[in-house]
């Protein structure tokens, strides 16, 4: 039994890695399904960047969508290797892609509630969550917050503006 105790660290690590790999993959797949479905539902809201808002842009509101999303143990291990050997941390690419799109969707959902049809000048803010006072732990959790915000509003109908 001695060897079992001695290797318990390895065994626990391996089990956690397996759990993280499968649940992580499953969650990611489900999240992407949800993102694609909601993107299709909210396609009627345009997100555009303009220097000058259109003259008939009215009912303006600030809309925000924020999401906090974490990587899993398995991706953190991969990213840890990449920290040493270098290269594209593809394990984090999907994490950020999902976070940004989720944030945009939440922002659009808020805009949809207000009956807006357009969001102009959307911006992103991204931050890692961790202990900011300890540089080694700043991104140790592999947890990221993405905030998308912009000005929602709708285009006044031409006949209304004419009237």
């Amino acid at each position, binding site marked *: 039994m*001695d*060897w079992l105790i*001695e290797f318990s*660290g*390895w065994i626990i*690590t391996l089990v956690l890695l397996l759990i993280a*790999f499968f649940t992580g*993959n499953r969650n990611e797949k489900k999240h*992407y399904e949800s993102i*694609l479905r909601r*993107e*299709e539902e*909210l*396609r*009627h*809201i*345009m*997100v555009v960047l303009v220097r000058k808002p259109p003259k008939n842009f009215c009912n303006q509101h600030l809309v925000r969508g924020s999401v906090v999303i974490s990587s899993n143990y*398995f*991706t953190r*291990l*991969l990213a*840890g*290797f*990449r*920290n*040493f*050997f270098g290269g*594209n941390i*593809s*394990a984090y*690419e*999907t994490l*950020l*892609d999902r976070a*940004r799109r989720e944030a945009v969707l939440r922002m659009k959902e808020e805009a949809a509630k207000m009956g807006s*049809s*357009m969001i102009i000048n959307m911006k992103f803010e991204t931050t890692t969550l961790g202990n900011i006072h300890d540089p080694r732990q700043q991104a140790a959790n592999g947890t990221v917050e993405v905030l998308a915000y912009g000005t929602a509003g709708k*285009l006044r109908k031409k006949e209304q503006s004419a009237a």
Partner: protein
Amino acid sequence: MKLEAPKFDESQNPNISHDTSHLGELRAMLGYLLLTILLVWLLVEAIVWSLPYTVSLQRERAWFSFVGKHLLADESIKHDPNMQELADQLAVHMNLPANSVDVYISDDDTPNAFATFGGNVVLYRGLLNRLPNEESVAAVLAHEMGHIKHRDPMRGMTRNLLYSVFAAAFGSEAQLHNLVHLESLRYSRELEYRADAEAVHAVVGQYRSAAGVTDLFRTLQTVEQEYKVAAYPTWLSTHPATAQRIEHAQTIATQIHATQTPAALPNRWQKK
């Protein structure tokens, strides 16, 4: 005209890599890791192998001359002329150059002895008092001198330093540290066997009998029982199991046709 956001084609998403699989990446990373471990290991072996040629024992003694002063600064550690004389006699049988070992005796009651940088050997009263005869004292001394002859303190330090650098590069990968630790234990046991072999050669050379080594191991076994040393598996300890060491020592004694004439000289360092 109806305004709406363009339809997004997921397979064309430029922000994520589509052709990578996490498991494949993990395999590649583990491959890199293995390669790195292999390289570091080869580097360590190369340095350790070339150490006796690049740094002579005399130079090591010059570098680490402060170790002896540091030892003597401790009130309980003293130089012992009789023991030094025995060491010098054993050195002849071990092909060690003259004046390459300094022997100290510590009044501490721990049954222990160690060799450290700069050819310094410390024997503890706790062990000396338990040894039945001069031959077994000579066996301990020769074992520690064997470590010095093979430059084991320097080897150990070199390996540890390089492994620390390696471990630091990988941060807090605790499992990696465990592996490195296990490897260093294996290495340590290997060095113990070699020191034991030196001890057999020296004791047989000095007294024409290998009985001193056997007596030493018997004493070690009683000490183990007394201290109730947990029966750790061999691969988890720095020293091989005493039973295996006895077997190993006897094999060597047979190879060099040494007799097992019982030891006869009294232990001059025993203090009642």
